[in-house]
C-alpha cells in the first residue's frame, strides 16, 4: 500500500522541473495537477490542486431556511438534486418532519435515482468512455464523445438516451431537468400525475436493458485486461458510505458504514447526525479543497474513499435483482479481496446505474407515487443535518437556524472532498508507474487525468467553482526556464510549441 504522503511534498522542490496540467479536462469543475521531476524525469512530487473558491457556506448564512434547498443546489449543474435533497433532509429536521409521508419520500427517491442514472450515464459515456474504448494514449483528436459517436454510434446513442431519461425523471419530479424546486422542507410540492407516471414507465424497461449493456461493456474491459483495469491508480484505503438498516445499498438514506482496505467492517450503522465528531476536515496550504479523515484514526490513517467503488463493496446487498447479480460478479472478480484499482469505479458506477434504472421502475409502479399526502411537519428544530449518497459519494449538509427562521451556520462536505486524499494518492500512483523516468507525452499525461476521472470528481461542488476544459502543460527545467509547452484547445486539438 502506498503511503498517502509519499510524493506529496518533495524534499528539494526548488531544484526540480515543474509540470502543470491545468485545468484537468473532462471532469466537472476546475483543478490542476502539478508534477515535479528531476533531470532524469523521476517523479518527486504530485499534487491535485483545487484552485477555485466560491464560499457558498458563507452566503447561505442569513437566508431563510426554506430557501436553502433551492439556493444551495446552484453550486452544481451536474448533480444539483443531491444538494437539493441533502438540504431538504436537513431542513426536514427544522420543520419537525421526522418521517415524511410515503408519497413524499418516494417522490424524492425517484428524483434522486433519476439523478443517479443521468449523472452516471453522463460520466461513463460522455467523459470516460473515450479513454476506455480507444485507449488512454490514443489519438487525442478521437478521444472524446464525438469520436465515440463516430466509432460506436450505438454506445453513444444509449449514453445520450439514458442520460435524457434520467433528466426526464428529474423534470417530472422537480419541475425542471436542472435546478428544480420539487423538494421542500417537510415533503415535496407535487406528486406524479398518472400521465407523468405512464410517460416515464413506457421507457423504464429499455433503460434497465441498456444499463445491463453498459455493465457488460466495462465488465468485458476488466476481464480483457485485468492487469491494467484491476491495478491502475490503485488506492488501498478505507471505504465509507451509507447503508440501510439491513446493510443494503441505499442512495437516499441510511447510516454510515466503513470497511478497511481489507474489507473488514470498521464501524457500522453509525448515525450521520454525529458526522462532525466522526470526521475531521483537514486543510493543506496548497489546495482550497479540504482533506477529511476519520477523527479517531488521525489524518495519516483516517482518510477514505467514497462513491461507487466504496458503496458497492460496502453494502451487503443491492435490493434490485439484476444489479445484485452484477454486484456478486464484481465481488467474485476480486477473489475475496476488495478492488482498489481506480478503474473499478467505472464498473461499480455502471452497476449503480443499473440499480437506479431498476429502482425507478419499481417506484413508478408503486401506487404511493401518485398519492395526495405530500407534506408533514412537527415540533420546530434549530439544527439540521442531511446526508445522502450523491453520484460521487457521501454528501453532508449541516445547518443551524435561529428563532427568526434564518440560517446562522452552514457546513457542507461534498462527495469529491471526501475523495480528496484518495484522488491525490491515485495520481501519485499513476505518476510513479507511468511517468517516472519517461519523456513527457500527451498520452502519458492523460493517464493522470484518467485516474482523476475514475472518481468522477465534481470540483465545482467541492470548491463551488466553474471550470473550463482546455489543457495547458508546461515543462520547465531546473532553473524554471520553459523548455516545452503543449496546449489542448476546447476542440481537443493538441499543439506543441517550444517557448
Amino acid at each position, binding site marked *: 500500500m502506498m503511503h498517502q504522503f509519499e510524493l506529496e511534498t518533495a524534499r528539494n522542490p526548488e531544484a526540480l522541473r515543474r509540470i502543470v496540467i491545468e485545468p484537468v479536462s473532462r471532469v466537472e469543475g476546475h483543478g490542476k495537477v502539478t508534477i515535479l521531476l528531476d533531470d532524469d524525469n523521476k517523479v518527486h512530487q504530485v499534487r491535485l490542486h483545487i484552485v477555485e473558491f466560491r464560499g457558498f457556506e458563507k452566503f447561505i448564512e442569513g437566508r431563510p431556511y*426554506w430557501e436553502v434547498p433551492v439556493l444551495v443546489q446552484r453550486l452544481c449543474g451536474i448533480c444539483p438534486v443531491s444538494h437539493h435533497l441533502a438540504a431538504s433532509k436537513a431542513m426536514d429536521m427544522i420543520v419537525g418532519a421526522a418521517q415524511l409521508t410515503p408519497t413524499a419520500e418516494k417522490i424524492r427517491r425517484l428524483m434522486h435515482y433519476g439523478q443517479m442514472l443521468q449523472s452516471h450515464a453522463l460520466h461513463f459515456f460522455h467523459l470516460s468512455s473515450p479513454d476506455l474504448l480507444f485507449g488512454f494514449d490514443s489519438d487525442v483528436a478521437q478521444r472524446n464523445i464525438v469520436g465515440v459517436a463516430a466509432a460506436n454510434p450505438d454506445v453513444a446513442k444509449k449514453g445520450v438516451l439514458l442520460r435524457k431519461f434520467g433528466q426526464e425523471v428529474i423534470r417530472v419530479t422537480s419541475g425542471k431537468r436542472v435546478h428544480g424546486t420539487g423538494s421542500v422542507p417537510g415533503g415535496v410540492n407535487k406528486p406524479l400525475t398518472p400521465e407523468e407516471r405512464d410517460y416515464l414507465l413506457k421507457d423504464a424497461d429499455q433503460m434497465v436493458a441498456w444499463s445491463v449493456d453498459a455493465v457488460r461493456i466495462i465488465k468485458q474491459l476488466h476481464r480483457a485486461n485485468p492487469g491494467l483495469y484491476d491495478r491502475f491508480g490503485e488506492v488501498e484505503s478505507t471505504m465509507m458510505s451509507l447503508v440501510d438498516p439491513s446493510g443494503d445499498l441505499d442512495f437516499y438514506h441510511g447510516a454510515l458504514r466503513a470497511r478497511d482496505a481489507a474489507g473488514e467492517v470498521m464501524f457500522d450503522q453509525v448515525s450521520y447526525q454525529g458526522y462532525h465528531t466522526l470526521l475531521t476536515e483537514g486543510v493543506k496550504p496548497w489546495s482550497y479543497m479540504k482533506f477529511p479523515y476519520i477523527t479517531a484514526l488521525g489524518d495519516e490513517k483516517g482518510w477514505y474513499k467514497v462513491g461507487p467503488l466504496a458503496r458497492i463493496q460496502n453494502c451487503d446487498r443491492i435490493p434490485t435483482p439484476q444489479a445484485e447479480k452484477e454486484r456478486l460478479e464484481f465481488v467474485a472478480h476480486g477473489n475475496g479481496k476488495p478492488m482498489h484499482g481506480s478503474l473499478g469505479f467505472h464498473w461499480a458506477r455502471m452497476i449503480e446505474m443499473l440499480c437506479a434504472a431498476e429502482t425507478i421502475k419499481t417506484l413508478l409502479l408503486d401506487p404511493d407515487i401518485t398519492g395526495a399526502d405530500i407534506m408533514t411537519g412537527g415540533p420546530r428544530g434549530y439544527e439540521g443535518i442531511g446526508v445522502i449518497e450523491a453520484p460521487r459519494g457521501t454528501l453532508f449538509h449541516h445547518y443551524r437556524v435561529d428563532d427568526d427562521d434564518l440560517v446562522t451556520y452552514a457546513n457542507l462536505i461534498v462527495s469529491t472532498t471526501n475523495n480528496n486524499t484518495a484522488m491525490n494518492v491515485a495520481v501519485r500512483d499513476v505518476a510513479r508507474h507511468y511517468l517516472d523516468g519517461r519523456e513527457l507525452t500527451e498520452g502519458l499525461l492523460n493517464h493522470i487525468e484518467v485516474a482523476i476521472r475514475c472518481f468522477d470528481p465534481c470540483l465545482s461542488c467541492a470548491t463551488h467553482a466553474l471550470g473550463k476544459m482546455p489543457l495547458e502543460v508546461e515543462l520547465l527545467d531546473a532553473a524554471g526556464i520553459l523548455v516545452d509547452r503543449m496546449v489542448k484547445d476546447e476542440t481537443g486539438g493538441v499543439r506543441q510549441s517550444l517557448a
Partner: protein
Amino acid sequence: MSNGQDGKSFFLDDEEIPFEDGQTIIQAALSAGKYIPHLCYHPEFKPHGSCKLCTVRIDSRTITTEDGQTVKIPGRAAASCTTPAQDGQHVESETPELLDLRRTLVQMLLVEGNHYCPSCEKSGKCMLQGLGYDLGVMSPHFPQYFSKREVDASHPDILLDFNRCILCELCVRASAEVDKKNVFSLSGRGNTKHLICNSESGLLGDTNIAATDKAANVCPVGVILHKRHGFEVPYGQRRFDRAPISDNPVQYAPVKEQV
C-alpha cells in the same frame, strides 16, 4: 367598438378604447383588454406614477416638410396611470421606442437590487420577472449595483427581503389606505432611497402588521414574503407559468362597484 358610458373614446395603437369620465388611460385600456406594462400601478390604489413602465405617447403628429418629406413629431410622453383619458386622443404604447424604454427601465431595476431569480421564491409570480420575460430582457445590460441590504425576519409570519425592493410603494399605500396602519414608508433620497418600517426599532416585528393585511399581500416582487411557504407551488402551476403577464389585462382593471 361601442363608446363608453359617457360616449367617449380614445385610440390606443389605433384601436378605439371607450372610457368613462375620470378614468385614466391605463384604467380604460386594461378594462378594454389592452395591456400596458406597469409595476407601481394597482387598480385598488391611487395612481403613483413612479415606475414609468406605463409611459405612453399622446397625440404624435405627422407633418410634411417643405421639401415634401413626411416627418413624425412625437407626442408628449406621459405615465398612463396618472393621465386622464380624453375623448379623441391618440395614444401610442406598443411602439419600438416605448418598448425599448420599458426594457431599459426593467434592466435598471434588475441591476439596482439583488434579483437572483433562481433562488427567489417569488419567481414565476413576480411582476418584475414577468415583465422582463414579456419585454425580452435577455441580459442585465448594465453593471450590477450589488447593493447590500439586510433581511428583516423579526416578524413571526412575514419576512422582508429588502434586496428586491423596487420602491413601488404599493405596500406603503396598502398599509395607509386599506389597512390604516402606516407600517411602511420610504426614506432617503436619490440612490439612498429605501423602504423602512414605522417602528421605533425599525423592525417589522415591532409593527402591528398582520399576514392577512393588504400590505402583506400586495408586493409585486419578492420583498414581502409569507414565512415558511416558499416554493410550495410547483413549476408549471405558478402564476406566470400558465400565461405571460400580459395575457389577461382585465385582471389589472378596476373592479366596478356594484350598484
